[in-house]
């Protein structure tokens, strides 16, 4: 009974259209014109359904009550009434066509990704997203930053539990941004409710989508296609900025990328590589090989005290650069740059008791990748 009252309250409140609270149970209005259109369509169709429901059930319950047996009502036993039949066929057709026209117009607009000012390639990977600003030489992966201790319950959950990342996708407002979406492994789906974008990313295919964001802000979403054990741990975070702020950010990232590219040629110190490698290991490798390199055999081999790894640098590099085809070990040749690969390999070779003392220079890795 209590819950029935709750629902009644929900329905009356949504009828009064209070926007601020509406989002608690309704879909969001979002921050793009398309998302507002979709919300409008949803509400229009919802109210059409409400009216139909009221008319149909109203007529039914009225008739049940008014012409009840105890009042001596007699059933009319006629068969066939062509004009009424035509009427109740024609009315739904008109309603359906009436709903299809605005819906089709919105769909058409949603698929029109022409004239974009910025192209971003979005690649799903088990279990992170990779963003590449095409033609700008800026690319990075975006990993969930919620600590595992919160997942296991050892620590209390933060405000954005499972919906926070180390590096969000940064986008400008008021500019049309086209997304080219694909996947490196299995099907994922990139979903941000406030942007009204929910698009499957499929290996071997490139799907297109687009947004023009109207308001700066941080918008959160998740992978919404079951993609393996860490499916719940690959959130999407979009940081929408004012245009000039975005231009500044992009220029900064471009510079950093150029600097990093130069970093390939110089000699790196072991401490530098180890520090860098530890970050990369924790954000990318530890989901499979575990925080202390202990792995979880037989699915994910241990990297700590791994005899072959300790004795054979080339074998180790090859595994990380080229992956293991047919197994879950991804190839990192295109998703990590030479500095990052050198760093994570150097770290692995010197952590958890693998005290080999080996230092792998980014230049060696660059050479291997070029081959």
């Amino acid at each position, binding site marked *: 009974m209590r819950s029935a009252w709750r629902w009644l309250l929900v329905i009356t409140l949504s009828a009064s259209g209070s926007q601020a609270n509406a989002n608690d149970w309704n879909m969001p209005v979002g921050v793009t014109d398309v998302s507002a259109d979709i919300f409008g369509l949803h509400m229009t169709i919802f109210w059409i359904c409400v009216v139909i429901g009221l008319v149909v059930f109203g007529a039914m319950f009225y008739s049940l009550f008014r012409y009840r047996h105890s009042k001596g009502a007699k059933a009319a036993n006629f*068969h*066939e009434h*062509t004009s009424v*039949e*035509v009427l109740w*066929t024609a009315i739904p057709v008109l309603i359906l066509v009436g709903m299809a026209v605005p819906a*089709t117009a919105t769909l*058409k607009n949603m698929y029109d990704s022409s004239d974009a000012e910025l192209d971003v390639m979005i690649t799903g990977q088990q279990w992170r997203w990779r963003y590449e600003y095409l033609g700008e030489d800026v690319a990075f992966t975006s990993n969930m930053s919620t600590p595992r201790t919160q997942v296991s319950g050892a620590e209390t959950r933060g405000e954005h539990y499972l919906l926070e990342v180390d590096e969000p996708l940064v986008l400008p407002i008021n500019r049309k941004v086209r997304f080219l979406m694909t996947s490196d492994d299995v099907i994922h789906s990139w979903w941000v409710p406030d942007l009204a974008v929910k698009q499957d990313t499929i290996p071997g295919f490139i799907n297109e989508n687009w947004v023009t964001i109207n308001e700066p802000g941080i918008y959160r979403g998740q992978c919404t296609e079951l993609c393996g054990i860490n499916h719940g741990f690959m959130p999407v975070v979009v940081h929408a900025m004012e245009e000039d702020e975005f231009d500044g950010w992009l220029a900064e990232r471009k510079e950093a990328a150029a600097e990093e590219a130069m970093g390939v040629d110089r000699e790196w110190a072991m401490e530098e590589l180890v520090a860098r490698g530890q970050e990369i290991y924790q954000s990318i490798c530890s989901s499979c090989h575990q925080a202390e390199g202990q792995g979880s055999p037989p699915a994910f081999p241990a990297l700590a005290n791994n005899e072959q790894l300790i004795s054979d640098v080339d074998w180790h590099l090859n595994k990380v650069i080229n992956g293991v085809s047919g197994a879950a070990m991804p190839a990192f040749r295109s998703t990590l740059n030479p500095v990052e690969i050198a760093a994570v390999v150097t770290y692995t070779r010197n952590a958890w008791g693998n005290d080999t003392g080996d230092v792998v220079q980014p230049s060696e890795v660059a050479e291997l990748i070029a081959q």
Partner: protein
Amino acid sequence: MWSVVKSVLAALLGVQSNQKRQEDFSSGKPAAYIVTGIVITLLFVLMLIVLATFAAR
């Protein structure tokens, strides 16, 4: 011929008078109704395609 077309159109809409149904079942060959049905369905699909093409302009 015209009466067959009318019956097929009525069937598409899902509404037919009892009297007409009796007539249809007492005269005419089933093949005529089947062929007319297929042709009209194809025409209907064609019409949708044309409509969609124009709408997509």
